């Protein structure tokens, strides 16, 4: 085998945008919980307030303070954080999409190949993940199918849903695009969907971080900072 093979795994653009994205997502999630805590009830439909039937109540006071930004009850400051970093997140995501479409990152690295989406292949990958067996050698040079599907799901399903439901909560934007209210079944439904999709993003981040730790944190984190990635030795390609 000799010296380990080192590849340049992530482009400079992907690395920069990843860390700006990480900062923004972290801050909008926590400030979002602050905003949620101002009325920790979820409703379905066009309207919903404390005299009405709630779909779900999260604790008496919502999420614990350590999970919110700022870490004390302060709705106005939470909103300032949320909207500032939501704008930054939108600009950052738009730049990422533009660069990734042009460079072929989406086509080459994220879209699964025909053979990869075969049920047998996916089942095999899930089984390998459950046994904590990660790709080695040539297979480690590209994303595996579960990775590809989860990245695509966050980028092309959850992120657009979060943006659209966020805008549906804006009384100003609703006047411009009333069809959003029809699409999501009302402002309160949109708020509930916004919350649920954000929780799925939080779940994605949790699994993402666990996978980084399990797959070798130094190598993985370094590949997202310097781009250099040591290919785990394995099958010869």
């Amino acid at each position: 085998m000799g010296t380990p093979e080192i590849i340049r795994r992530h482009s400079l653009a992907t690395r920069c945008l990843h860390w700006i994205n990480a900062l923004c997502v972290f801050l909008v999630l926590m400030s979002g919980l602050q905003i949620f805590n101002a009325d920790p009830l979820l409703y379905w439909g066009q309207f919903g307030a404390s005299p009405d039937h709630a779909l779900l109540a999260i604790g008496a006071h919502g999420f614990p303070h350590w999970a919110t930004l700022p870490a004390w009850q302060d709705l106005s400051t939470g909103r300032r954080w949320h909207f500032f970093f939501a704008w930054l997140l939108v600009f950052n995501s738009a730049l990422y999409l533009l660069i990734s479409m042009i460079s072929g990152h989406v086509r080459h690295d994220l879209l699964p190949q025909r053979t990869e989406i075969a049920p047998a292949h996916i089942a095999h990958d899930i089984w390998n993940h459950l046994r904590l067996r990660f790709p080695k050698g040539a297979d480690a040079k590209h994303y595996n199918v579960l990775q590809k599907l989860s990245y695509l799901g966050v980028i092309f399903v959850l992120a657009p849903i979060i943006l659209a439901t966020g805008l549906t909560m804006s009384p100003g934007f609703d006047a411009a695009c009333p069809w959003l209210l029809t699409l999501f079944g009302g402002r309160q439904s949109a708020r509930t969907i916004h919350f649920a999709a954000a929780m799925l993003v939080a779940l994605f981040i949790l699994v993402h971080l666990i996978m980084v730790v399990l797959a070798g944190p130094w190598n993985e984190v370094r590949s997202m900072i310097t781009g250099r990635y040591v290919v785990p030795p394995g099958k010869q390609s």
Partner: protein
Amino acid sequence: MTRQMWTRRQMLQRGSAAFGGLLLGGCGRLSQSPSFHRILSSAEQLTYRAQRLIVGQSLAREFTTADLSPVFRSNGTARPRGALYNQLLTDNFEGWRLTVGGLVNRPLALSLAELRALPARTQITRHDCVEGWSAIGQWTGVPLGSVLAQAQLAPEVRFIVLFCADELERGDGGYYESIDLMDAFHPQTLLAYELNGRPLPVANGAPLRLRVERQLGYKQAKYLMRIEAVARLDGIGGGKGGYWEDRGYEWYAGI
């Protein structure tokens, strides 16, 4: 080898805990820093300009009586404490007058009967509280624009300020709000005296409240007493254009 792995893992744990702690502590410090607050608040201008561009004069969605909230929730002041207001309430608002002044050619003092005699508009719209909840109600009132047209605004007017009879906390100087002329002359912006076909209840702002449908609940000033046309907002109250704005909330509450 195992030893080293453990050290690495511990390092990673401690490192990330320290990093997280630093970041969170930092966010707390930043939240309290006035200059950082200004940076965060710059997003409001972006939202305001983007929404003014995209939303323009479009109307807020209007609903049907089938969509009404069974109970229209009231928030903030449920009944003003002041002696003046309570005297007006006892007299069924006979002595109440809405004064319209500031930079106008014809100052006005309108009674409730005079307001009711003006051409009215009825609309069923959604009220969105900054806390997150929504309620749907039917409002009847006079378009603010028609009252302002009667008063004849001076050319330098940029904002309409609405002064209220209630104090949320004793000695806070009273609730007030302000909107720009685009919202003031929007056809759905009303001086509302009826909710769901009945005179406005005290909890919802009797005798008169503002409806500015494309913004959040705290802009919908209740217990209106005085309207003033102004060129600038500094010098009024805390200078930020409203009771909650003086306490850190956005002046443009379209989001």
